[in-house]
């Protein structure tokens, strides 16, 4: 029998707003263990009377950041757990978690590339862990992030992505804003489509390894689009999330 993945009580050591609806929470973990970029933690909340609710959240931090994990959480309207994080949780609070979990939607430098990352909204979170891991390891795998957001204010990790793209060898960040664009916007201004995927693929080199995370429609369209553009399905890994209605 494998060791059970035990619940542990983490302590919130930082809360950082990323956008109007998204915050990052750093949890110090007494039984931290190294994760692989792309994995998630389960969170369990318990009320005074014993009622519990669980959700899974992707790890945003690189595994090289030991002893703690950063979870980036989007507020889901009418949600049960994400509004608690956004409205109640503050530095010093205790949060029960277990992880890391997941063994397929993961990347580390040894898996190679080129790396094609495609994100919709907060789907960027597990991909950010990969980008951060790549940077922390000084890895030069040619990497492109194609990232779709509604507006410029919805872009998560905006400054960090800009700074990584300018300083990190071989990392290209391509953004599309689907709802509105600020004056002078030079990125794409529509939903991810085959032409856009082709543009990004051309800059990457042959047979990239693709990771796609976002709402179901974006993931379906992107995964099918990449297969139509010639990627073997086995090179395309997906993770979906989002409002379930």
């Amino acid at each position, binding site marked *: 029998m494998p060791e059970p993945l035990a619940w542990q009580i983490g302590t919130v050591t930082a809360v950082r707003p990323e956008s109007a609806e998204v915050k990052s929470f750093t949890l110090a973990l007494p039984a931290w263990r190294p994760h692989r970029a792309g994995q998630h933690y389960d969170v369990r909340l318990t009320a005074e009377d014993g009622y519990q609710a669980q959700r899974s959240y992707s790890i945003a931090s690189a595994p090289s950041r030991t002893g703690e994990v950063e979870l980036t959480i989007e507020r889901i309207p009418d949600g049960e757990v994400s509004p608690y994080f956004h409205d109640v949780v503050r530095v010093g609070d*205790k949060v029960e978690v277990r992880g890391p979990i997941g063994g*397929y939607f993961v990347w580390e430098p040894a898996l190679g590339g080129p790396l094609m990352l495609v994100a919709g909204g907060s789907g960027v979170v597990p991909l950010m862990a990969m980008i951060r891991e790549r940077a922390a390891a000084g890895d030069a795998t040619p990497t492109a992030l194609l990232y779709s957001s509604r507006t410029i204010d919805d872009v998560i990790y905006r400054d960090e992505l800009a700074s990584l793209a300018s300083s990190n060898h071989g990392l290209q960040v391509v953004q599309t804003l689907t709802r509105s664009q600020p004056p002078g916007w030079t990125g794409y201004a529509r939903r991810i489509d085959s032409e856009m995927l082709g543009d990004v693929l051309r800059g990457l080199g042959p047979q990239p390894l693709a990771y796609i995370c976002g709402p179901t429609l974006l993931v379906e369209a992107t995964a099918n689009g990449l297969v139509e553009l010639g990627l073997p399905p086995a090179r395309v890994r997906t993770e979906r999330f989002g409002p*379930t209605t």
Partner: protein
Amino acid sequence: MTDRFTSRGFFGRRRDAGSERADRIPPGQYLTDGFPVLSAGPTPQVPLDRWEFTIDGLVSEPVRWSWEQFQALPSRDWTVDISCVTKWTKLDTVWHGVSVDDLLAAVEVDPKARFVTAHSFGGYTTNLPLTDLVNNQAFVAYLYDGAPLESAHGGPARLVVPHLYFWKSAKWVRGMHLIENDQPGFWESLGYHNRGDPWREERYSGD
């Protein structure tokens, strides 16, 4: 054990607290009215003229059905509750398909057969004890809510084993391979529980 840990300021939504519906939600799950899609890779598109379903391994004679032959098998509606390991539960989902008992009736099962590898177009696999598939516990569905099952939800046909977490309900299923010794499938090899009973919260290896 969590002992006396509570989350400061957490009360919970409890939309269905105390109701008959709440009693049907396994521990750690929440109710959804939507039908989330989860899969590890691109959705395989399987033309019906290339679709097949086979039973092989520890059987007297392997059997293979074409789409047309499969449609002619005895089938019925199934109304079941389903739970995904990613925490959502959906009640009263309505499917139409063929019971695994009726499929197994087409072969003579070797008494040594104790496990099944369900395998899919696209390469997905999941393992199940034969005892979790018989006695009207499982079926191969090709209609959902009266309409052809969408490819994103596993169409043309999907195995449905509603009493286990939904990754056991192999999408795009193309056959069952009967074996003597258990062989972990895709998710079972990647840290997920070998059996996956939601009422025992068997999510991950070791649970």
